[in-house]
């Protein structure tokens, strides 16, 4: 389908950015267009938890004034409407502690009911500085724990490609909003695949940068040694603009690394001739759908035709990744979520006894998956089990990291499926936590090793999107983006849009 036939709100940042700078459309028109799509599909997709209509329109008008003064040069996000996963805090209080009209923050949880953040996340600050227009906060699995968005306290998100299926998770509201023409880009967070897997299932681009590349300040913590934030976009080129705005050192996040940030758009040469791209044989996991494997292997062939050398490699500890992850992530989560105590903010049972207040507040405020992970993490860290579980998992992390380092010394990047399946039916995996956890088998080793990874659309299987994952060396997002972009240009799946774009 020709891009020209697409409604404005379904186009890329690159396309509408040109229209903005040449004053053929206004940021207000784009913002109103997104808000109209958000309203139209509010019930059938359930993507947003909060929408800031008036503020968005005011920001759009501000951007239009800057654009009229020629301020769009070298500011590719000026006037572009976007959404934040509701894991990022957005300032909603003034210095006197009064509501200032900003958006609430829930993390998809009842335990933060009524919470208004007194400060803004680094992501919001940087995107505001870049001139982007915040539309609202997107639905997600509670505290980012899930692979289907069914763990949100505010109901599941529906996939715009087929409303009976999940969009993936945990950043499912963000992936579905970008797929569904409700925002030109959105941010998600990725602890074990929560950007790449929903990007794959929703048919959009999703990038998890290297651990330490982007500030986590104001990003509600799930597993602090694994969490990273990144963009959902409709093209790899768009992705470079958002990463450019986000990347860089922030003293407020002590794990943010102070090293130079390259020009990401300049890395998109379209040329992969002579590059060595490794395919880890262990990533074709048991239970992978044949349609997914076919589409991904066809993507390898596309890159080979472009002149890359495709070599099979081995990451033998891949199989241990799931177990390692499901010790480390819950252990860190159990510590991070201790802060929800019914005293400082959020839900409180109002009991007169402190222990009773903790038990009742947390028992009522957390949903089943969050409770499961707090229990698992507390158990793994408890006396007598710490060495057998937690220390063991940290040792296997060393092995997994060393295997990636060894293989990536010999190849420029790795190619793999993003998810073993396409979007599955809502309710299909909710009864079996282990079955749900398998969704992230191909993505979570990348978090364990802290590497950058992207999911790029690789066509359809049974009418639903498949994602190709490109994994790179630490802080080498540029190569990951270059490979993804070369593939995107050659494969020409970038114009695929869900049915919601056309009715």
């Amino acid at each position, binding site marked *: 389908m020709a891009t020209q036939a697409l409604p404005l709100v379904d186009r890329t940042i690159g396309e509408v950015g040109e229209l903005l700078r040449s004053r053929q459309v206004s940021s207000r028109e784009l913002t109103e267009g997104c808000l109209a799509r958000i309203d139209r599909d509010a019930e059938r997709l359930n993507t947003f938890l909060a929408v800031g209509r008036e503020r968005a329109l005011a920001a759009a008008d501000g951007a239009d004034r800057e654009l009229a003064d020629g301020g769009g040069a070298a500011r590719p996000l000026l006037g572009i409407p976007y959404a934040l996963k509701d894991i990022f805090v957005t300032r909603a209080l003034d210095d006197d*502690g009064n509501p200032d009209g900003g958006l609430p923050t829930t993390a998809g949880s009842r335990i933060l009911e009524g919470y208004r953040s007194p400060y803004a996340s680094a992501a919001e600050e940087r995107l505001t500085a870049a001139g982007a227009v915040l539309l609202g906060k997107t639905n997600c699995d509670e505290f980012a724990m899930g692979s289907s968005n069914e763990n949100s306290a505010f109901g599941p998100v529906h996939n715009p490609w087929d409303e009976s299926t999940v969009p993936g998770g945990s950043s499912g509201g963000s992936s579905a909003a970008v797929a569904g023409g409700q925002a030109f880009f959105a941010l998600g967070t990725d602890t074990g695949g929560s950007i790449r897997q929903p990007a794959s299932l929703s048919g959009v681009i999703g990038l998890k940068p290297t651990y330490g590349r982007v500030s986590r300040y104001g990003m509600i913590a799930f597993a602090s040694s694994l969490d990273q934030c990144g963009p959902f976009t409709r093209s790899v080129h768009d992705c470079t603009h958002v990463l450019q705005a986000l990347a860089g050192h922030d003293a407020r996040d002590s794990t943010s690394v102070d090293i130079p940030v390259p020009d990401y758009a300049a890395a998109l040469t379209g040329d992969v001739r002579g590059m060595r791209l490794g395919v880890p044989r262990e990533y074709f996991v048991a239970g992978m759908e044949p349609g997914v494997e076919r589409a991904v292997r066809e993507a390898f062939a596309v890159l080979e035709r472009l002149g890359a050398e495709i070599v099979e490699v081995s990451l033998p500890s891949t*199989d241990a990744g799931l177990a390692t992850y499901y010790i480390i992530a819950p252990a860190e989560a159990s510590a991070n979520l201790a802060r929800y105590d019914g005293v400082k903010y959020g839900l*409180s049972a109002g009991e007169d006894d402190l222990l009773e207040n903790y038990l009742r507040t947390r028992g009522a405020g957390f949903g089943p998956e969050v409770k499961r992970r707090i229990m698992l993490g507390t158990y793994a860290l408890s006396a007598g089990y710490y060495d057998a579980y937690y220390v*063991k998992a940290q040792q296997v992390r060393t092995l997994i990291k060393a295997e990636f380092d060894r293989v990536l010394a010999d190849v420029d990047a790795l190619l793999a499926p993003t998810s073993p399946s396409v979007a599955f039916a809502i309710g299909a995996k909710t009864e079996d936590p282990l079955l749900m956890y398998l969704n992230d088998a191909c993505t979570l080793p990348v978090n364990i090793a*802290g590497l950058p990874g992207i999911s790029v659309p690789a066509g359809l299987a049974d009418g639903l999107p498949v994602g190709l994952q490109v994994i790179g060396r630490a802080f080498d997002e540029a190569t990951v983006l270059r490979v993804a972009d070369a593939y995107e240009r050659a494969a020409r799946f970038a114009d695929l849009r869900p049915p919601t774009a056309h009715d």
Partner: protein
Amino acid sequence: MISREDVEHVATLARLGLTDDEIDRMQGQLNRILEAIGQLQSVDTSAVGPTAQVIALENVMRDDVSRPGLSREAALANAPLREGAHLRVPVVLEEGR
């Protein structure tokens, strides 16, 4: 295998109030998950140290100078219970406890 008592003990450590139904379900699910992650015991890690985080950062220090932070009102605005300039907390220490 973890017992029902184990589940109750861990829930108390985690300060999670669980209903009887939740405890039953949790016991079955945790046992299945622990069985699956038990496979790690077969990985040979005798020659490997643990990794807590993957980037080569040492302690990150800053100069010890005061900087503006949240205002008191903004910091207290979300408190479920407050008394003047303080968070109100149920009694923690009392005689005879």
